[in-house]
């Protein structure tokens, strides 16, 4: 009973401001005759019609799949190279300037270049997401791996933890807080790149559909697409929060314990 109440209160806190903003939007546009800013109720009624009549499978699903593949790739590549760079001082010194350069290149710039090599299909879009969003994962992982406690590392070594066991039992868990921070940043970059890559050259996807609506002056439909993107991002962020609290339960507990003692 108490947990239900607490859950309800949390949901209330979470939804209070969005509800207020939506109400403001509703009130401000209710009598709008502006072609570009239609009333919210028009947008909402367009929302249902636009997205629940086949587009969920035809456009939203491809977007989500590209996002999932690209994000997974970014995390895998970022953690892999990050561990390598974090574990070897020489590799780090050699790689640092190059990394800084690549990180500074705005990822959307890659799209025209990649189109030359990989065409305009899913490969291009997924590659853009991987190349653009792997950097925060990579850099945070490298930092986390570099900062492994040396007493812990000695302990692991003295108990014969080497190779794959060391990676799995010491390196990855120890760097997990930083890796997760990088993954959170990468998630929002991935969403942005998913949309942008679909706007360039595509025949399906959320970004593509929104641009189509805009070009066809289907303004309420365009707005509904933007709303859907927002909702998608919000849902993914909630999902990520749950993942984070599961993976880092020990980290939070320990920080609280340390704060309690001092």
């Amino acid at each position: 009973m108490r947990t239900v109440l607490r859950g309800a209160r949390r949901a209330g806190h979470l939804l209070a401001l969005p509800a207020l903003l939506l109400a403001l939007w509703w009130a401000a546009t209710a009598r709008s005759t502006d072609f570009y800013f239609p009333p919210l109720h028009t947008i909402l009624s367009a929302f249902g019609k636009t997205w629940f009549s086949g587009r969920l499978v035809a456009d939203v699903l491809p977007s989500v799949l590209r996002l999932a593949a690209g994000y997974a790739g970014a995390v895998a590549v970022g953690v892999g190279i990050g561990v390598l760079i974090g574990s070897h001082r020489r590799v780090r010194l050699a790689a640092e300037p190059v990394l800084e350069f690549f990180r500074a290149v705005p990822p959307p710039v890659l799209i025209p270049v990649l189109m030359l090599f990989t065409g305009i299909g899913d490969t291009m879009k997924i590659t853009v997401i991987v190349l653009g969003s792997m950097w925060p994962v990579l850099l945070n992982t490298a930092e986390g791996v570099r900062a492994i406690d040396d007493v812990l590392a000695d302990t692991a070594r003295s108990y014969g933890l080497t190779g794959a066991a060391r990676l799995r039992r010491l390196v990855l868990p120890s760097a997990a807080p930083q890796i997760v921070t990088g993954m959170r940043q990468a998630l929002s970059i991935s969403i942005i790149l998913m949309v942008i890559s679909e706007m360039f050259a595509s025949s399906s996807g959320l970004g593509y559909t929104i641009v189509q609506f805009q070009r066809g002056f289907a303004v309420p439909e365009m707005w509904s697409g933007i709303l859907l993107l927002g909702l998608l991002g919000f849902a993914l962020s909630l999902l990520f929060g749950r993942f984070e609290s599961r993976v880092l339960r020990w980290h939070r507990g320990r920080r609280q314990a340390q704060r309690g003692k001092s």
Partner: protein
Amino acid sequence: MTGTDIASRGAVDGASGPALLDVRGLTKTYQAADRTVEAVRDLTFGVGAGELACIVGPSGAGKTTLLKCVAGLLAPSGGEVVLEGRPVHGPPENMAVVFQEYGRSLFPWMTVEQNIDLPLRQKKVPKRRRAELVAESLASVGLADAAGAYPWQLSGGMQQRVAIARAVAYEPAVLLMDEPFAAVDAQTRAELEDLTRELWRRLGMTVLFVTHDIEEAVYLGQRVLVLSAAPTVVIEDAAIDLPAEREQLATRSAPRFAELRAHIYSLVQRAKTYHDGDPVEVPRP
């Protein structure tokens, strides 16, 4: 000046049978940017099977360097460490180390139980035996009901007990302890000292215990090796002829304890200035 001190080592060695752990002519020098730092000059000693030997020395005596070389975590510059007849080149499978920094030597993402289990898994101990070892070792340090807790949920003393349980469960031939109780309060420290002696006597382990605390060394050890300031050498290997049954109050107030403490104390005082007559090290060009 040191002739008599060094002569006394032979007597102890002769009494303690073949060494399980043999440190022969160990040296360690560090290469800094513009000079060579000689941390350990020449360490030679043996620890017999089932012995509890303490190592004391002034701070900066290279105690931790010595211990890391013995544990195979640091390669010596010269000499060798031999454990059960085999030279040590990396961390040996039949050795466990308990570090001073308990808060940094337990895996915080694992429960107490998982912390003890992991090294056993690594050693490919069968699952049933692992469960037994975990339960037994936790019981032996008085933490049977903390198996499911995370290390950071426990007090410092309890965390060090977990580290000791993990070492004991590993069933090592030699247990190395690097100032294990330097960071806990006096009360806990006394308890952990008694726990160490109890486990040592019950399990027949060989223990090499490094400390900067002279009283602790005398209370715990059968022998106390006194190290000089860096570059380190052994200046005396003193036998502690206190009765095997030791008890915090009675033992520490015994006249023999006071004599031994005074003896070791004066040695450690001398250890600090042991190299003052030496020619000054000239930085390399």
